[in-house]
C-alpha cells in the first residue's frame, strides 16, 4: 500500500514537472517571438521600404531594386520578402539579428554600409525580433536581387573589414542617463531606426561619417546637399512647424522639400505616432548647434 502510494505520487510529480516544463517552453517561445504588428510600425519608422522597393509605379514593396548612386558605385536594395531563393525566406531570426547588429551576411561576408547597419546596430533586441516577425508575414516575391555596380576597387568585400574597424561600433542604443525619457526615445528613433545620420551627417573621403558634424548637413550620399538638423538651422522653426513639415511634407508657406526627403516624410516621419514625432523633435533640439 505504502509502496503503491509512493509510486502514484512519483508519477504525479513527474507529470507535474513535465507539464511545468512544457508550460515554460511555450511561455519562453511566446516571449522570444516578435510581435508582427509592432514590427510593421518599426519597419515604417526604419524606412526600410525606401531602399528595398524599386521606384517604379507597380513595384512590389520590399522586393528590392531601388538604386542608390554613391561615389563608390550604385547599390541596389535587395529583396527582403520571405521568398526562399529571391528573398530571405531561408534566414533564421539569428541571421537577421546578426545582419542588423553586425552588418554580416548569413554566409559571413560583410555588408556594404549602404545598408545602414552602423545605425541599425543600435536597434533593441526586442525591436529586432518584432521587425523580423513582421518581415516573415510579407508575401514572398520572386524578384531576383540585383548585383551592386561598384568601382573595381570597392567591390572587394574583405576591404569592408577595414572600414568596419575604422567606422563601425556594434551595439544596442544606450540611453543617456542625463536626458529625459522623451529625449532618449527621440535619440533612439533618430540614431537607430530612423538612421537620419546616414544622409544628414557628412562623410569623409572613405565614406565614414564625420562625427564632429553629426546631423549638420552638407553633401548627402548621392552627392546632393542635405539640410543641417542641428539647432543652428532648426531654431528657425517652431515645434508645430516642424511637425507639419514632417507629416505633410510642406512648410507653412507651401514650400516643398527635395523629393529625397519628401519620400522619407511619406514613408516614415508622417507614419510616426504623435508622441514619437514629438520625441524626435525634442531630441533634435538638444543637439549641439553646428554651423
Amino acid at each position, binding site marked *: 500500500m505504502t509502496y503503491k502510494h509512493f509510486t502514484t505520487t512519483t508519477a504525479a510529480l513527474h507529470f507535474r514537472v513535465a507539464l511545468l516544463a512544457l508550460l515554460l517552453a511555450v511561455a519562453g517561445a511566446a516571449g522570444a517571438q516578435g510581435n508582427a504588428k509592432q514590427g510593421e510600425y518599426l519597419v515604417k519608422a526604419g524606412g526600410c521600404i525606401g531602399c528595398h522597393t524599386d521606384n517604379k509605379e507597380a513595384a512590389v514593396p520590399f522586393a528590392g531594386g531601388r538604386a542608390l548612386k554613391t561615389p563608390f558605385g550604385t547599390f541596389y536594395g535587395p529583396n527582403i520578402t520571405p521568398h526562399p531563393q529571391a528573398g530571405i525566406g531561408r534566414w533564421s531570426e539569428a541571421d537577421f539579428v546578426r545582419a542588423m547588429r553586425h552588418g554580416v551576411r548569413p554566409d559571413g561576408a560583410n555588408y556594404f554600409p549602404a545598408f545602414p547597419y552602423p545605425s541599425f546596430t543600435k536597434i533593441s533586441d526586442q525591436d529586432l525580433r518584432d521587425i523580423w516577425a513582421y518581415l516573415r508575414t510579407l508575401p514572398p516575391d520572386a524578384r531576383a536581387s540585383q548585383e551592386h555596380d561598384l568601382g573595381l576597387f570597392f567591390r572587394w568585400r574583405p576591404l569592408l573589414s577595414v572600414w568596419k574597424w575604422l567606422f563601425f561600433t556594434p551595439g544596442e542604443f544606450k540611453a543617456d542617463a542625463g536626458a529625459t525619457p522623451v529625449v532618449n526615445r527621440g535619440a533612439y528613433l533618430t540614431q537607430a531606426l530612423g538612421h537620419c545620420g546616414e544622409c544628414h551627417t557628412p562623410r569623409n573621403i572613405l565614406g565614414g561619417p564625420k562625427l564632429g558634424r553629426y546631423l549638420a548637413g552638407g553633401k548627402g550620399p548621392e552627392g546632393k*546637399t542635405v539640410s543641417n538638423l542641428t539647432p543652428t538651422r532648426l531654431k528657425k522653426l517652431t515645434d508645430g512647424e516642424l511637425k507639419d513639415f514632417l507629416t505633410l*511634407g510642406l512648410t507653412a508657406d*507651401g514650400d*516643398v522639400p*527635395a*523629393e*529625397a526627403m519628401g519620400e522619407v516624410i511619406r514613408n516614415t516621419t*508622417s507614419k510616426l505616432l504623435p508622441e514619437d514625432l514629438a520625441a524626435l523633435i525634442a531630441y533634435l533640439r538638444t543637439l549641439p548647434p553646428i554651423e
Partner: protein
Amino acid sequence: MKLHKIVVAVLALGVAAGALAQAKPEVLVKQRQAAMTLQGKYFGPLAAMAQGKAPFDAAVVARNAGYLEALSRMPWDGFDASTKDVKSGTLPVVYSDAAKFKQAGENMQAAVDKLVAASKGKDEAATKAAIGGVGKTCGGCHDDFRQKP
C-alpha cells in the same frame, strides 16, 4: 505708308524684346522667386487636403489648379544665364545642365496639367493623387537644383 507701318511695328517689337532682354539679373531672380512663392501659396492648401489634414473642397482645388497652371509656366525664363552670379537658392547645375533643368520644369507643368484635368472631374481620389503627383515633381526638381536651407 504701309511699309512705314511695318517698319514701326518691327521697331516697336524690337524695343519690347530688347527691354525684356535687358531686365536686370536681380530683377529676374526676384520675379522668378515671386512665381515660386505664389505656387507655394496655392499648392499648400491642396497638399493639406490631399493628406486629409484639411477638408476637401473641390471648388478651391479647381480654382487653385487654374492658378497653378499659369504660375507653373512663369518661373523658367527667369533662370536666364545672366542670373548665374546672383545670390539665390539655385545650384550651379541649373545653368550647367540647362536641358535637365528644363525637363524637370516640364515634368512639373505636366503634373499640374493632370491636376487641372482631374479637378474638373468628380473623382476626389484621383484629384488627391494628382495633387500628390505635383508635390513629387516640385520636390524632384528641388532635389537636384536647389540648395537646402
